[in-house]
């Protein structure tokens, strides 16, 4: 179905000021939406209060209102502009809340404004804890068991459910103090007793504690014709317990078999369908690393920070497509903006590995608690793409611009063995470098896994990097000899092991400056050696389709591989 011809003008809600947990991704999404709607001939009216965005640029919308994002101001704009539709699912929580309030206040009805995209009902269902749990039960998708307890007598329910461990969280305490993890009935009663006493409203929440479970996300899209696709899945390096915005994340998932991948994909599509979402949606799932059991953790019934990451990781313009869906277009009527030959109705196939690392503001908030938990603390993030996880990770680290260029930060080597163990156990911003330090000190992957619950696959990759580092250190002389060999016609033949080590290090993303420091070969000499050996990077295209089709959009990353595509 082509776009709804009864729509002539659309009000787009911006996302307001940038706060922790909500950065430029909504600016990105909103701007893409404005462009997508105008492309379809619609008149776009925009409200936003943030000056430091491209969205409030004068030529982004047909009319821009610099106003607070609240009911009073939005109602006025609606009264004046009489838009036919309202697009609220691209401005983050701010836009969504405002749309809900406008509907509840009767403004949308009064002025005949249709909420485009996902219906409010769906948003409410996704966001209200109880409604969401009920819906999941209806469609047979599991949510972690949980109880709200206001009296010790009610503890028999969770105690007898046979679910261990349980996490106990007192409600309404300052900073969430007084909770804990109960591994058995006695501990449950003890912690809950303490928690009830601490809670200002004598209330504790008890929930299955998914310790060490994998955290997986799916970015899904659906149109009004019920066609639904997944744009991208992502796997968190950090297991459950760390907000996905504070996690190191890979796309696509790395440790899931096809069966696990498809099981969670199917669940995600079932959810987007059951909610009736028209547009984009983010589903967060938790998967037992030891069985097929999984739980639905959270659903964001809108374009989110993860969607922005998924868009850039795959080349698939989620916000753009979501905007077109919102005006009635179907996925199979929207062009794939990258290939320009296929349609938006497909699932991107990646032939590279994406690593995202969050950027935290602890350099500015020196005294702040650097532990990362379920409330996001990062201000920004970097993404890197490579043909290997190691390469992408090393590039992402260098992109952080925080002075760390590789496997060592400034503090991990100063920690005692006991402190290292603690740093592995308690997630904080620089855990990555505690892990590399642990491997340097000879800790086994199993030991690090036992402390951190991080999947051994990721840990093996880190240990591989540390292995290379250590081999480089012990082969300094060999590398100097190699770099100084001016006579040999065939360096690979005369120094096979040294060349192989150098190649391995570059493929794994070791920067020349690090290689130089470790090996003692000056950086410039190292570079010319690499050129002689042909160990030079090439560029590959991000094309949404693993080269199956020719792509029109030139979006590149570097890697150490054979063919340069430009």
């Amino acid at each position, binding site marked *: 179905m082509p776009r709804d011809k009864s729509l002539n003008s659309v009000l787009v809600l911006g996302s307001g000021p940038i706060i922790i947990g909500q950065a430029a991704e909504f600016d990105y999404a909103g701007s893409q939406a404005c462009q997508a709607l105008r492309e379809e001939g619609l008149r776009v009216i925009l409200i936003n209060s943030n000056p430091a965005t491209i969205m409030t640029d004068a030529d982004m919308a047909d009319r821009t209102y610099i106003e607070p994002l609240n009911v009073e101001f939005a109602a006025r704009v609606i009264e004046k502009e009489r838009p036919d539709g309202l697009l609220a699912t691209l401005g983050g929580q701010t836009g969504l809340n405002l749309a809900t309030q406008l509907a509840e206040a009767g403004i949308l009805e009064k002025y005949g404004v249709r909420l485009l995209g996902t219906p409010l009902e769906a948003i409410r269902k996704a966001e209200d804890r109880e409604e969401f749990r009920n819906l999941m039960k209806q469609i047979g998708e599991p949510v972690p068991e949980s109880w709200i307890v206001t009296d010790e007598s009610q503890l028999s329910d969770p105690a007898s459910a046979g679910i261990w461990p349980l996490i106990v969280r007192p409600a309404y305490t300052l900073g969430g103090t007084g909770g804990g993890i109960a591994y058995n009935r006695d501990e449950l009663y003890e912690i809950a007793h303490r928690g009830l006493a601490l809670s200002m409203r004598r209330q504790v929440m008890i929930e299955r504690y998914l310790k060490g479970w994998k955290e997986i996300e799916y970015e899904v899209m659906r149109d009004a*014709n*019920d*066609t639904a*696709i*997944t744009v991208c899945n992502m796997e968190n390096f950090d297991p459950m317990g760390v907000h996905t915005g504070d996690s190191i994340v890979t796309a*696509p*998932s*790395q*440790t*899931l*078999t*096809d*069966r696990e*991948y*498809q099981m969670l*994909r*199917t669940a995600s*599509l079932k959810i987007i369908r059951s909610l009736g979402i028209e547009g984009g949606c983010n589903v967060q799932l938790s998967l037992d*690393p*030891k*069985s097929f059991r999984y739980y639905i953790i959270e659903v964001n019934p809108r374009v989110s920070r993860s969607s922005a990451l998924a868009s850039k990781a795959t080349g698939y313009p989620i916000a753009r497509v979501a905007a077109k869906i919102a005006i009635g277009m*179907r*996925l*199979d009527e929207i062009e794939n903006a990258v290939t320009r030959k*296929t*349609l938006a*109705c*497909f*699932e*991107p*196939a*990646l*032939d*590279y*590995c994406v690593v995202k690392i969050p950027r935290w503001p602890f350099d500015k908030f020196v005294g702040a608690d650097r532990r990362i938990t379920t409330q996001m603390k990062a201000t920004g993030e970097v993404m890197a793409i490579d*043909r*290997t*996880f190691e390469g992408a990770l090393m590039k992402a680290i260098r992109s952080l611009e925080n002075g760390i260029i590789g496997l060592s930060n400034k503090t991990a080597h100063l920690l005692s063995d006991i402190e290292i163990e603690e740093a592995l156990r308690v997630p904080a911003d620089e855990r990555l470098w505690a892990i590399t330090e642990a491997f340097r000190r000879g800790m086994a992957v199993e030991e690090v896994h036992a402390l951190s619950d991080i*999947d*051994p*696959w990721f840990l*093996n990759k880190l240990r591989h990097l540390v292995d290379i580092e250590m081999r480089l250190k012990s082969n300094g002389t060999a590398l100097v000899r190699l770099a100084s060999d001016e006579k040999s016609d065939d360096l690979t033949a005369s120094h096979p092991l040294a060349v192989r080590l150098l190649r391995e290090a570059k493929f794994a993303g070791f920067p020349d400056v690090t290689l130089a420091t470790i090996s003692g070969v000056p950086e410039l000499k190292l570079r010319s050696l690499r050129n002689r050996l042909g160990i030079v990077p090439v560029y*590959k295209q991000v094309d949404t*389709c*693993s*080269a*199956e*089709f*020719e792509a029109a959009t030139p979006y590149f990353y570097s890697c150490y*591989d*054979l*063919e340069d*595509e430009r």
Partner: protein
Amino acid sequence: MRALLVFQDGSYYVGESLGAIGRSQGEIVFNTGMTGYQEILSDPSYAGQIVNLTYPLIGNYGINDDDIESRRIQVSGLVVHHCEEIPSNWRCGYSLQDYLAKNNIVAIKGVDTRAITRHVRQKGVMLATITSDETVDEALARLSKMPAYETADFTQVVTTPEPYLWNLNTSAPAPYDHKSGRTAARRIALLDCGVKYNILRSLAKYDCETVVFPCTASHSEILACKPDGIMLSPGPGDPANLHPIVETVKHLVGQKPILGVCLGNQILGAAFGSKTFKLRFGHRGSNHPVKDLNTGKVYITSQNHGYALDPDGLKDGMEVAHINLNDGTVEGLRHKELPIISIQYHPEASPGPTDSAYFFGEFMGLIDQGG
């Protein structure tokens, strides 16, 4: 150990040997799925082919005992960018390289799989070889003597030698005794041109027991098992080589409800007058959009085929029911009157999206109406 991947057209890629040492040859194709290498390896439709996987990190979750789609590894060879030596998954039984080595599959790693994909995209599929003990010229000379992929009938290679039975109680082929009574609500007779176990598992979930017949079975042998429905399986190779099977199917038409999948779709098409043509580089992956022309709905499908039906010749009430949104090729047929449906893609998934599993349900509907 150094290995070479040499193409019929003279291009070659240098990598490292993976799995068994030696030589393998076949038609080189690529698959863009990001997961499912184990299912791909054991998919009979890849018989006679060297599969290049576009996702660069392969072997991450190793190999397990469950996700196997036939009785052996079916691909001729495998091409990967990186093979993970230390897999991580709770079901993992062995690493990919051990599995390949144990099964004597000659594979190659450390090559630019994206470059290979682009080459195949541009030049089309062709014969290639993986070799660890030849020069490029030697390998080329050997390739030049190899018969073309189209000349072989791979269904004969992959089909079951004897009929067997699959029901809910089995997770592997069980002996079929034509005298034994039914164990499920419906009985399906399946003409095995290269069936994947997940088709049988899926049918079992719909309370069907399946009798799997060699592709050489006659229509009377098949009908003798008193099936409620007949299924034509996927399989490898050029459909144009399968005249006898097409003839068998012609005899089955009108007898029972028929479901064709993949090669089964093409065989049905042939039985209704259509011809097939070779695609330049086929459809292999987990992300192909297919539109149901009846409902307008689009499904993301798992695909693996190198040939497509030419819809022009279709006759006797057969019509196109599904098309591929990427290139418009035929993805499914439906008979206007008879209970015959078929799709070119994989309702059994494995690997790939399970969106089309409902298609088995449609077949059940046809059976239950007709029966």
